C-alpha cells in the first residue's frame, strides 16, 4: 500500500548521483582555480555588477570581496584592508567526516575559490589571516550544486578569535533587512560571552551588539536601502537582487591570544515586503475567489426552486 513512499526512498541514491552531477565535467579535486579560470572570473567580474550594489571604502574593517556571477565553478575573492599571503577554504562536509581545509595562495591580494570534488556545492567558508596573525577576515561563498549541510563546517572554529554565522540561509533564502540572524564569537573554539560585536553596512548604518553566555549575538539587518529609483540607477537598470554589504567585527584586548581582531562580511537584501503590496495581492486573491463563486452556487432546479 505504501509502495509510492518506498519507491520514493529507493530512488534516493540513484537520483542523488544524478543530482550531484548537475553540470559540467568533473573538475580536479582542488579548491584553487587555474590561472585561466581566475582570469575569466576576473573578466566576468568586471562585467558583472548586475544584481549588486558595489560601494568601496565604507568600512575600516578588512573585507573579502567577491566577484559577481563569476561562474558556477569558480568564485574570485579579493582581500581588502589586510596583508595576507593565502586564503583558507572550509567546504561543507558530510556528517562525521573531517573538515577538509584548503589553503590557496593569494596573488596581488586575489584568489579563485573553486568548487571541490564532484561539484560539491553549498556554502564554503573562506578566511584570510593577516601575516602578523593579529587580524582575520572571513566570508562565505555559495555554489549552487547540491552539497552537504554546513553544520559541521560552522561548528569548526578557526584558531584565535573568530566570528561566524551560527546558521545559514538555505539556497533560496537570503539575509534580509528586518530579519534577525545569530552569529557566534569564539576564541580557539570556545564561546566568548559579553563580547562587543559591531555591525556596519555599506549604506552607512552601524550598530553594536553584545554576545550572550553561549557567545551568540543576534544581529538585525537594518532597512537602510536607497529608494528603488536610486537602486535602478546604481545598477544600470537591473534592480533585481539588489544587495548591500555588511561586516561584523570584534576585537579582544588581551596579550594571551594570537588573533585579536576578527571580522565577517557578506551581503543582505531588501526586506520581505520591499516593493511589494500585500493589499494588492489580497485584492487579486479576493477577485479570484469572487470569480469562482458561480461554480459553488447551488443551481435551483424546478423541484428545489419552487
Amino acid at each position, binding site marked *: 500500500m505504501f509502495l*509510492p513512499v518506498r519507491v520514493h526512498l529507493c*530512488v534516493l541514491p540513484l537520483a542523488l548521483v544524478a543530482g550531484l552531477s548537475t*553540470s559540467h565535467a568533473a573538475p580536479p579535486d582542488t579548491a584553487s582555480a587555474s590561472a585561466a579560470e581566475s582570469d575569466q572570473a576576473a573578466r566576468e567580474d568586471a562585467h558583472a555588477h548586475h544584481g549588486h550594489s558595489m560601494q568601496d571604502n565604507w568600512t575600516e574593517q578588512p573585507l573579502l570581496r567577491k566577484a559577481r556571477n563569476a561562474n558556477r565553478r569558480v568564485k574570485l575573492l579579493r582581500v581588502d584592508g589586510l596583508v595576507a599571503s593565502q586564503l583558507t577554504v572550509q567546504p561543507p562536509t558530510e556528517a562525521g567526516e573531517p573538515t577538509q581545509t584548503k589553503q590557496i595562495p593569494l596573488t596581488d591580494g586575489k584568489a579563485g575559490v573553486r568548487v571541490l570534488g564532484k561539484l560539491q556545492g553549498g556554502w564554503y567558508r573562506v578566511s584570510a589571516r593577516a601575516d602578523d596573525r593579529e587580524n582575520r577576515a572571513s566570508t562565505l561563498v555559495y555554489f549552487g550544486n547540491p552539497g552537504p549541510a554546513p553544520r559541521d563546517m560552522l561548528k569548526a572554529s578557526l584558531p584565535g578569535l573568530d566570528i561566524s554565522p551560527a546558521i545559514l540561509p538555505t539556497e533560496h533564502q537570503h539575509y534580509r533587512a528586518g530579519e534577525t540572524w545569530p552569529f557566534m564569537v569564539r576564541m580557539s573554539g570556545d564561546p566568548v560571552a559579553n563580547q562587543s560585536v559591531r555591525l556596519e553596512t555599506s549604506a552607512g548604518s552601524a550598530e553594536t551588539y553584545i554576545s550572550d553566555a553561549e557567545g551568540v549575538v543576534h544581529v538585525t539587518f537594518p532597512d537602510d536601502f536607497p529608494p*528603488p529609483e536610486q537602486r535602478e540607477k546604481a545598477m544600470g537598470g537591473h534592480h533585481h537582487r539588489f544587495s548591500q554589504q555588511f561586516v561584523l567585527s570584534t576585537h579582544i584586548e588581551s596579550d594571551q591570544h594570537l588573533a585579536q581582531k576578527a571580522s565577517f562580511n557578506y551581503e543582505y537584501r531588501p526586506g520581505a*515586503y520591499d516593493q*511589494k*503590496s500585500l493589499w494588492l495581492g489580497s485584492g487579486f486573491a479576493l477577485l*479570484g475567489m469572487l470569480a469562482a463563486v458561480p461554480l*459553488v452556487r447551488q443551481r435551483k432546479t424546478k423541484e428545489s426552486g419552487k
Partner: protein
Amino acid sequence: MKFWQTIPLGRVRLGVQLFMLVFLLYGGSILGHYLADRVSGALPALACAYDGETADHCVLVPMQHQIHHQVGEGLVRMQEFAVKMVIPLFFTLLTFFTMFVVLNKAFCGWICPLGTVQELIYRLGRWLGRPVKRLMPGKVEKVRPAKWLMLVGLVFALPLATGLGVAPHAAGDAFCEVCPSRVLTTLATGEAEELAVNTSGWADLALGAIRSFLFGFIIIAALAVRQPFCRICPMLALHATFRRLALTRLTKKPHAKCEKCGICHKACPMDIHEIWKKDGSKAFHEDCILCGRCAEYCPDDGVIAIKFGPLAVFESSRNYYKARVKTEKPDGSRAKRRAPRREGSS
C-alpha cells in the same frame, strides 16, 4: 478478499498525502534547517523553493533557472556550448526523469501538496453541501491543451526569452511567478510574503496579480470542481511526456459490461472519460494522476489495476467496490446510510 483489499485504497492514499503534506511543508522546521537543500539534492521535484522551511524544492525552479541562465544567456555568449548549456540541462532533466520513471503520475495523486489541499477543499465542499461541477466530454477537451501551453510557454519559452534578453527579468521563472502553490505553501507556514504582489515593474505586477488571482480562484473553485489547478499544471504535462516509460502506471482490460457502466468516469477527479470508453494504453490518459479511484470504483474483478512494473499494486474487485460505495459515492460525496429496517414495517 486479499489483505490489501481490507483497507480502502483511498484511506491509504489520504494518509500518504497528509504525511507528505506535513513533511514537505514543515519538514525543515521539524527535521532541521538545512533539510530542504539536502532532500532537493536528491529529489528536486517536490515542494516550493520560496518557502524557507519546506523539506524540498520543486523541480520546475532549477529547470527554469537552467533555461534562463544556462541556455538563454549561454546562447547569447555562444561559448562552450556543450559544457555550459546542454550538459547542465541534460542532468537536470535526467534527475527529474529518474524520479518520474519510478513515480511518474503517482507524484500528482499521492505527493503533491497543492493536489492534496485541493482534495481536502473538495471534501469540505461535500461537507458543506456544495454542488459537484464536472467537465463532461466535449468540454474537458477544451481545457486539456492549457497544461501544454503552461509547460511550453511558462517553463520553457519565457525563461529562454529572458535569458536571450528579450523578455523582462520577472519572466525568468515565469511559472513560479504564477504558481498558486507558492502562495499556499508559504501561507501554510505563516508567511504572507508570496501573496503580496511585486510592484517594481509591470511584468512583476502582472505575474503577481495572476498568481494571487489563481490562488483565490482555486481555493473557492475546489469546493465544487475536483482538482481545478491540476488540469492546467505543467507538471501534469511533464509527467504525461514520460508516462509510457513509467514503472507506476494504470492498466485496463476490455470488459463487456464497461459500455453501460461508466462508474470509473464518475469517480475520476480529472473527468477522464477515456478510462470508461477506452482500454489498454489509451485508458492511461495524459491527465491521469494515478489516484486509483477508477480502480476502486470499478465493480468488476481485475478490469482496472495500478501496476508497478509487473506487480499489480491494486486491482478492481467487486467485493471491494461494494464495501467502498457504502462509505463514499464515486463523485466523492458521502454515501447516505440506510436506516435500519424496523420489524413489521412494510
